[in-house]
């Protein structure tokens, strides 16, 4: 059964795509046009009542929230592809710990930074400099914690790659490429080494190759962007 992944092929849906590639699970993407606010329309809201992407459909089984989806497929296909959950219950606890860190400490500032310094300017709306500065400072403090953690552990949950690292890929990619803030990663020795490691995984390169983010000329034709 091929898993359908609804969403635009950059940002949060990429979290699911890279997980499915790591787990060697066949999938197909179903585009949802955020610029035409398709995700807020009645048809989509039947699938996902909060109007956000991604959503997956696996036969009759529908799931939303990217971090719930990746947990499910990592567990369901535990014995195939890369093990993304650690080898013991305690290791899994560390995976959960750092996946929650990504969700609650890392994601908010990097998401706000993405909106202000990438999405808005590309749509002709000036980015709010004050918000950019505030969120960059918050993100810097989080990356300082990561630097300390990664000076003692090869990956966030321990000495093994896991969902906790995978979950950081989509927005960090935007940070170092389209947002041109690679110094935030490169100025931190251990974060830099960790980023080189995880972003060079074949699964991530495949996702970037198959599903590139729109380049800047494609963004400006949309004037109805809903985040």
């Amino acid at each position, binding site marked *: 059964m091929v898993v359908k992944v609804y969403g635009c092929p950059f940002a949060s849906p990429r979290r699911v795509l890279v997980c499915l590639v790591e787990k060697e699970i066949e999938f197909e993407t179903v585009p949802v046009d955020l610029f035409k606010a398709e995700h807020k329309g009645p048809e989509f809201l039947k699938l996902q*009542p*909060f109007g956000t992407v991604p959503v997956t459909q696996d036969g009759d*089984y529908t*799931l*939303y*929230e990217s*971090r*719930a*989806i990746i*947990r*499910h497929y990592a*567990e*369901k296909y535990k014995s195939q592809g890369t093990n993304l959950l650690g080898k013991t*219950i*305690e290791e*899994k*606890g*560390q995976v*959960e*710990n750092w*996946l*929650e*860190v990504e*969700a*609650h*400490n890392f994601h908010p500032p990097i998401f706000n930074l993405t909106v202000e310094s990438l999405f808005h300017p590309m749509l002709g709306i000036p980015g709010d400099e004050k918000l950019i500065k505030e969120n960059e400072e918050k993100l810097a403090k*989080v990356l300082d*914690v990561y630097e*300390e*953690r990664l000076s003692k552990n090869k990956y966030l949950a321990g000495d093994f790659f896991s969902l906790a690292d995978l979950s950081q890929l989509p927005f960090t990619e935007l940070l170092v490429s389209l947002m041109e803030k690679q110094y935030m990663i490169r100025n931190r020795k251990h974060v830099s080494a960790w980023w080189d490691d995880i972003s060079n995984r074949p699964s991530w390169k495949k996702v970037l190759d198959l599903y590139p983010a729109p380049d800047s000329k494609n963004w400006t034709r949309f004037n109805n962007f809903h985040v």
Partner: protein
Amino acid sequence: MVVKVYGPVRAACPQGVLACLLEKDVEFEIVHVDLDSGEQKKPHFLLRQPFGQVPAIEDGDLKLFESRAIIRYYAAKYEDRGPKLLGKSLEERAVVDQWVEVEAHNFNDLFYTLVLQLVILPRMGQPGDLALARSCEQKLEKVFDIYEQRLSNSTYLAGDSFTLADLTHLPAIRYLMTDAGGLAHLVTQRKHVNAWWQAISTRSAWKKLMNLANY
């Protein structure tokens, strides 16, 4: 081995962990952290939780933080006893995770901002931003509408039994019903949300926690 839970018994996120441990009948000891004096930002606590937040746990050699990671760990470790907080199958478990994520990303920030503006800042002698609080309240109305729809088709958020998805809402909704004045209507005016709240807040584990916290 007694699990040490670091954090005040009256703070929302530690309460989620304590409720889970009580449901699973796991012995714990609460190590108070004085948020009012900023103990959570002091160096000795940052060694335990580098973001300066509560709760954190210590269970022998195991140290964890992030309440939703901690409850998932204990729900899995003690899967065979007490209520099935992770559902009864892999598919049910994912739906539990989905609604825990919904609470984390669609509900929690709104609730937290509301409480910050209406309760915490005034308690610290600073004026809360009432316009921001009102805007959060309006957004929460929409979120509760979705919950009402969901709970009209399902007794509990993830299905027909109580799971982590319901448990993670207990501390915040308790706050809305009591401490944050004038917001109980968010629950009481919605038939299915209200019935769900009655069911989850009368569980004996939650009542034990209310006693422990001296409410």
